[in-house]
């Protein structure tokens, strides 16, 4: 009798009850992982959802928010300054990353091979800029790019060329200056990531290639780069996000929120934060801007994955199996 009621109860157990029982049984594990999910929901997910909502309103933070539909987006996409900022960001991002990723890959290849000694010293020195603060680095580079007493113009003049007015004039040299500093700062980081990936490549592969008489350039392009494809994809994605977030360096280098002469150093992140919350109080407009930038990141990520994913063709069949 007793046992039959028990089993009856067991059969009628509600999904909620069983869920709670599982929760209780595994409470330690859930407790250990819960901080991440709680913080993510409150400080990550909620603001992102709220940002989409806010982007359809006009709000100054004090008076009542006014629903404006897509007007924030329309205004943003017709603002020449936004396009200028986007162009500046893309210009810096593309040219800088040719050197950052390409240079990082070459340095990693050399420091992973048996070509040189004292590899740890080189690695340490190349990684040094990554450890330092963007603000410090940008202040030092501002001095290095000084027109009359900067180290870089001194070097240029010593070579018999004319000094460059890096920050003045029409501002044509602002982007190259930011770009140079950006490369200096991040090449070591990417080198270390590639080095990590290269340690996963079996040494026999290199030895076999060497026995076959392959030159280093061949080994680099035929073995190293193809194997590192997923890691290169990862670094490209990181670089896109990093470029869109580019803010501190141009702000400090040009010493202005507007990106210096003719806004030549204005990046999209500076444009966004200047609308709200750092400069003005155009909260809805800034949210729309943030969403457009995110859309750009997402589009880039998808293109990247399509272009670089090594087993794109195999994936559907694998899933079916």
């Amino acid at each position, binding site marked *: 009798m007793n046992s039959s009621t028990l089993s009856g109860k067991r059969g009628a157990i509600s999904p909620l009850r069983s869920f709670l029982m*599982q929760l209780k049984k*595994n409470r330690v*594990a*859930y407790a250990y*992982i819960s*901080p*991440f*999910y709680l*913080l*993510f929901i409150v*400080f*990550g997910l*909620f*603001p*992102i959802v*709220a*940002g989409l909502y*806010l982007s359809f309103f006009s709000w100054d933070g004090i008076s009542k928010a006014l629903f404006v539909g897509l007007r924030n987006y329309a205004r943003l996409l017709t603002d020449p300054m936004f396009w200028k900022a986007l162009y500046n960001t893309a210009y810096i991002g593309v040219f800088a990353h040719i050197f950052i990723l390409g240079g990082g890959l070459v*340095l990693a290849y*050399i420091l992973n091979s048996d*070509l*040189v000694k004292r590899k*740890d010293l080189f690695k*340490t020195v*190349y*990684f*040094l*800029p990554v*450890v*330092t*603060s*963007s*603000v*410090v*680095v940008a*202040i*030092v580079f*501002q*001095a290095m790019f000084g027109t009359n*007493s*900067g180290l870089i113009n*001194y070097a240029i003049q010593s070579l018999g060329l004319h000094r460059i007015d890096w920050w003045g004039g029409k501002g044509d040299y602002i982007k190259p200056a930011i770009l140079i500093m950006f490369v*200096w700062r991040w090449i070591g980081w990417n080198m*270390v990531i590639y080095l*990590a*990936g290269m*340690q996963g490549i079996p040494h026999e592969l290199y030895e076999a290639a060497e026995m076959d008489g392959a030159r280093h350039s061949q080994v680099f392009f035929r073995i190293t780069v193809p194997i590192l494809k997923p890691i290169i994809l990862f670094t490209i*994605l990181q670089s896109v*996000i990093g470029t*869109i977030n580019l*803010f501190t360096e141009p702000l*400090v280098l040009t*010493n202005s929120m507007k990106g210096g002469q003719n806004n030549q150093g204005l990046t999209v992140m500076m444009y966004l934060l200047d609308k709200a*919350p750092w400069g003005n109080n155009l909260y809805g407009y800034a*949210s729309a801007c*943030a*969403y457009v*930038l*995110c859309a750009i*990141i997402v589009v880039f990520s998808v293109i990247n994955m399509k272009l670089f994913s090594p087993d794109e063709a195999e994936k559907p069949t694998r899933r079916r199996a």
Partner: protein
Amino acid sequence: MKKILLYASLVLVGVAMLVPFYWMFVLATRSTSEIFRFPPPFWFGDNLASNFANMLRTVNVFGSYLNSVIISTAYTFLVLLFCSMGGYAFAMYRFPGRDKLFGILLVTMMIPFMAGIVPWFIMMAKFKLINSYFALIVPGCANAFGIFWMRQYCQNNVPGSLIDAAKIDGCSEWLIFFRIIVPILPPAFAALGIMSFIGSWNDFMQPLLILRNSRLFTLPLLLRYLQGDPMRGADQGVLMLANTLAVLPLLIAFFAASKYFLSGLTAGAIKE
């Protein structure tokens, strides 16, 4: 010959990496008028003491030092605590929904959080967290990357048999974690801790939005303030000295631990 060329280019890159630091040190010992001279100074001057005195007169560097130390230390401590707990649970426990939850965690690493930066700021303002360190320490402390990192390490280095044995001996879960698991983790703590500390120490954008009171400024904010204020920023020697003081601890720490740190970074990434 080829080898010499290779070394030469590697050394050249290395020099390019070091020159800005060297020049920063040099300018920290020079007066403003010397700094703006042409050709620029290449060797150390004798203005260090006066720059130092001027610096102490104009800004509260040591107050900012303390602020930076408090924020970065608290942040790093919480990162290590929550990420090791999370990583350990994902690696060593079986529970319903584990793989799905871990999948969600991985996906969050791809989300550009900048999408929510405006509401994030409004939320902090509504919670009265402007000018509080909470906003800089807590929201990011249980981060996906750290949990992922610690999970990898636990999977490869924590023997399941050890936990079973401890359970049979009647150890509580809490005791198992702090007495048995945590002592295995220092190598993973080192790399993740250094990365977290550096990130927090150097962060500029979040403190810029959150800390509006100059007494609460972290070092990057103080330096930006020194540079941006035309009255104070005019003194380049002071600025470079403050710069030097801000990066010196990290440079020394990194040089001392670089081998350990770099190998930890690379080792962690292989197992991805």
